[in-house]
């Protein structure tokens, strides 16, 4: 009988609930970035589980590939796409959420009940023998003998995916890029002359030069189009008035 030693059991009972809670939290948090971080945590937990189960190589790969590369890719795309109304947690398709929750309860219940019923019919073996010459060496042996053909196919898949991503990301211009002169003309012919000279920078006249502080217009009101739309959508725009000085020293000192 493969017995799990106490340290592993402690580790498991500590990490497993944490992983499940993090996963649930991933669904509940509003911001995609938070979801990504929670997912990264779940993946690190899984890496620890892998290592604990004598899958050293996979554990390392999990950290390097998933938390390292894939999650970074997610964050990068999040940065590109920004935030919009899709981050709202309000359900727009009527009746979908109860269905999803009921289905999830049924699905999870059935899975758990099935696992609980399953019996192997023999003792669990453990990987001591299989890993006798080292986990990486044993995996390499399998990978380059029994699984060499799938390995080659998967490498072809990787190259294809890279090419596919390039093709998808490539943007074919349908009209030539507007020259600076054309852009200027368009700006002056546009509906409002107010923006003809360019949008105001954030923080102008606001006594604060942070990107989330709107500029002040000559009449003292805030100019919302001076800050990034992303910040506005996130609700990260600050009030310029809070940086007003309560007392303004109007005395002019002569410069020497």
């Amino acid at each position, binding site marked *: 009988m*493969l017995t799990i030693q106490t340290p592993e059991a402690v580790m*498991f009972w500590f990490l497993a609930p944490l*992983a*499940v809670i993090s*996963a649930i939290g*991933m*669904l509940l948090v509003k911001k*995609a970035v938070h*979801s*990504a971080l929670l*997912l990264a945590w*779940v993946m690190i937990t*899984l890496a620890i*589980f892998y290592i604990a*189960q004598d*899958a050293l*190589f*996979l554990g390392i790969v*999990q950290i390097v590939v*998933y938390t390292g*590369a*894939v999650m970074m890719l*997610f964050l990068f*795309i*999040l940065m*590109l*796409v920004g935030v*919009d*109304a*899709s*981050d709202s947690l309000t*359900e*727009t398709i009527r009746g*979908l959420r109860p*269905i*999803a929750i009921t289905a*999830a309860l049924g699905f999870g219940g059935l*899975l758990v009940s099935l*696992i609980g019923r399953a019996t*192997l019919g023999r003792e*669990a*073996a*453990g*990987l001591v*023998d*299989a*890993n006798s010459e080292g986990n990486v060496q044993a*995996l390499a042996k*399998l990978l380059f003998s029994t*699984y060499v053909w799938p390995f080659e196919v*998967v490498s072809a898949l*990787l190259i*294809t*995916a*890279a090419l*596919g*991503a390039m093709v*998808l*990301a490539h*943007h074919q211009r349908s009209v030539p890029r507007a020259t600076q002169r054309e852009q200027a003309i368009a700006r002056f012919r546009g509906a409002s002359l107010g923006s003809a000279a360019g949008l105001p920078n954030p923080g102008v006249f606001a006594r604060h030069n942070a990107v989330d502080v709107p500029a002040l217009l000559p009449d003292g009101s805030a100019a919302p189009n001076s800050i990034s739309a992303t910040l506005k959508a996130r609700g990260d725009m600050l009030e310029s008035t809070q940086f007003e000085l309560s007392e303004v020293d109007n005395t002019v000192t002569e410069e020497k």
Partner: protein
Amino acid sequence: MNPYNYLYVSALLFTIGAVGVVVRRNAIVVFMCVELMLNAANLTLVTFSRINGTLDGQVVAFFTMVVAACEVVVGLAIIVTIYRSRRSASVDDASLLKR
């Protein structure tokens, strides 16, 4: 403790991922939920590898990771392309099929 406990965790994570795909609207979060489901499957494979005493489960998990990486690359490229033309990362906005 029994190694089957890892399977329970895997089942729960998979279920949570499945719910996430259904309830979340942000395409990137949906994608992350898919990744969560793939990881849950990987945990199952590793656990079974341990129970059976052979490394084949780990090899398959390795392949799964590679395929998942490919999927992430292509999927994110698609999201970017859609966002570029529709200015939205909501999966509900890409619903032209019903018309």
